[in-house]
């Protein structure tokens, strides 16, 4: 017997983007000025409008007690889908039926006000999230204990550290008891401890039989928590399956019929910025020729980054992030990792940087590299897991010279380490 919690039938959402992009609203002046143009001019009002399809014919069903992970790159429509299901925005067509109360957490601390005290904010946030005042009062002590900011409950939250603020905000949200919980990217903020707590709480919620919809870039979290995953690509549902791992894999590596590529070329002129505009990201052999796949674990493999610099910034860090097939991050590497006198010198114009992947470090398998780049501690230019472009490669064989190590061992890494007798 099925107990549907959410039934989504052919939901679409389009936004009109007028010429003043970024400003959805107009001014009365513009509107008044456009009236004569609409009456006498050749231009029709509709010419100014372009439509952006944020969601196209999305249909799926979620059973009660399931945890659905929604994944996809930035701009794929994940947040739009959550907003439609939370009734914040209205779909352009299609319909969704939801059985039960929905608690949506699209942001930590919605409605929090800096000038108000912790106590006041708990009530404010709780009622905004849909709790009755009496409900908040009944759970007040519990919320406070969970947040761990008891001593500061009567201090305005503007004096809180960001960690305390997040803990308090999440504590309120964690005590919501709707049948359906909608969570967007809550885990992207806060420290590791906080993220761990969020994931733990969501696991609890799921175990108690409530339904959770969960958008995240954290593939480990999705894999651990979700019983079902949905992949969005440019507003279209690319994959939806209870085999969470396969959906994650498709998100990270593309569909299986697509050749993993060891080269990314910025052909569309993306990532415009004066500090480091990437032009090419490629795996090469020792002579700088593009490497083919699969590679031997013993091969000399270089990662080559090319980019245009128009403005020098001493805080520029360029490098790559290496992920396993399951989406586990192995490490980040930057051109600034060693002592300062050993950094490659970045100059105005075209820069080609390269770094070698240690031989016999990685095990057999498929790996993903992301080109990442930031102004250290200031802003991401290419953010890992969010905007960074990827290349892929796979390793097959060449793991060791030992006669006893012929086959693939378990593990992501397979380093050849020296043993000595002392």
């Amino acid at each position: 017997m099925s107990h549907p919690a959410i039934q989504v039938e052919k939901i679409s959402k389009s936004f009109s983007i007028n010429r003043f992009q970024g400003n959805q609203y107009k001014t009365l002046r513009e509107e008044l000025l456009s009236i004569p143009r609409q009456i006498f001019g050749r231009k029709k009002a509709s010419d100014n409008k372009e439509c952006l399809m944020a969601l196209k014919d999305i249909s799926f069903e979620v059973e009660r007690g399931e945890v659905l992970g929604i994944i996809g790159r930035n701009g794929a429509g994940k947040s739009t889908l959550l907003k439609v299901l939370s009734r914040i925005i209205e779909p352009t067509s299609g319909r969704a039926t939801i059985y039960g109360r929905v608690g949506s957490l699209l942001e930590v601390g919605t409605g929090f006000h800096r000038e108000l005290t912790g106590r006041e904010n708990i009530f404010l946030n709780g009622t905004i999230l849909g709790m009755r005042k009496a409900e908040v009062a009944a759970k007040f002590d519990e919320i406070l204990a969970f947040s761990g900011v008891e001593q500061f409950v009567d201090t305005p939250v503007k004096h809180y550290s960001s960690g305390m603020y997040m803990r308090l905000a999440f504590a309120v949200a964690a005590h919501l008891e709707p049948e359906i919980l909608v969570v967007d990217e809550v885990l992207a903020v806060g420290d590791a401890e906080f993220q761990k707590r969020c994931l733990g709480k969501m696991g609890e919620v799921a175990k108690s039989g409530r339904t959770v919809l969960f958008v995240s870039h954290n593939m480990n979290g999705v894999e651990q928590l979700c019983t079902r995953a949905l992949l969005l690509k440019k507003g279209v549902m690319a994959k939806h399956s209870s085999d969470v791992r396969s959906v994650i894999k498709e998100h990270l590596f593309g569909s299986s019929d697509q050749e993993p590529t060891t080269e990314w070329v910025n052909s569309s002129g993306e990532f415009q910025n004066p500090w480091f505009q990437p032009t090419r990201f490629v795996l090469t052999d020792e002579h700088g020729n593009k490497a083919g796949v699969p590679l031997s674990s013993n091969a000399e493999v270089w990662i080559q980054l090319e980019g245009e610099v128009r403005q020098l910034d001493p805080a520029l860090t360029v490098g790559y992030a290496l992920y396993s097939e399951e989406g586990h991050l192995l490490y980040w590497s930057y051109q600034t990792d060693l002592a300062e006198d050993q950094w490659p010198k970045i100059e105005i114009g075209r820069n080609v940087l390269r770094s070698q992947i240690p031989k016999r470090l990685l095990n057999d398998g498929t790996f993903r590299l992301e080109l990442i780049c930031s102004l250290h501690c200031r802003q991401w230019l290419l953010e890992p897991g969010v905007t960074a472009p990827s290349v892929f490669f796979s390793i097959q064989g060449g793991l060791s010279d030992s006669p006893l190590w012929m086959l693939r061992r378990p593990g992501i890494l397979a380093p050849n380490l020296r043993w000595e007798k002392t």
Partner: protein
Amino acid sequence: MTIEPPKTAPDLSSLQIPDGLPRIVIEKRSGWAAFDLKELWAYRDLLWVLVGREIKLRYKQTGMGVAWALLQPLLAGLIFGALVYFARLPSGGLPVMLYVFSGLVPWMFFSGAVQRGGTSLVSNTQLITKIYFPRLLIPLSNTLAALLDWLVTMILLVVLMIYYRQAPGLSLLALPFFVLFLILAATGISLWVSALSVRYRDFVYVIPFVMQIWMYASPIIFPVRLIPAKYLFFYNLNPMVGLIEGFRWSVFGHSSLTFQMFAVSTFTSIFLFVSGAVFFRRVERTFADII
């Protein structure tokens, strides 16, 4: 990190999901929407919490807090009183300060409520794009919060009346009636302005200007009897004329209130409120898209 993924679907039989779960259908609505009073009722706590937030913020963010709420009407009263006194404007047989102040009390509530309510949606963008609740609560909580300022000015008026030994008569019983219509008018205009200013941002700048002009077109400084008879009909179309004179009448037992004023202002207040609510309801579903 050790989080056990739910390997199998949890046993639903042990779960206390009440029968008859609310069933929400999400689809495009078109045209005029009916009022979901049941939903508004379900969110009544939020209304009061939002009203509380408005009031707390008002008194926390200004350095002088409550003193400011007293000083502002007092200073305005003194300035306008001086104006009436030195310009030798008639004050309807009342002490000048009482005349001016009894006009300022309803006016300051009205203009305060409209200015706060009118900008309320635009200044709460964060809430509108991140969570669902009946949007009506935002302007509503702002106009209701303005009632506290009204109460403060009311206390000042009572103090003045004691000072001038002016006792109210039986007509005081009509006061709640006029206050109610003031609230209806202010809320109605707030709903119109707040909804329109989501789409047309310059409304936010137009409103203070309009309120300034509106004040001079209302009997606060210039009494009704100064208006030439041939313009009186048009003057009386301003709903605030009837509401302010009605307020004066209920406090002092006499004023320039006429039946035309009374009829116009009660009708207009109800019309503003109903039309504002209907318009708001029609456009509220696009707020999150364009704000």
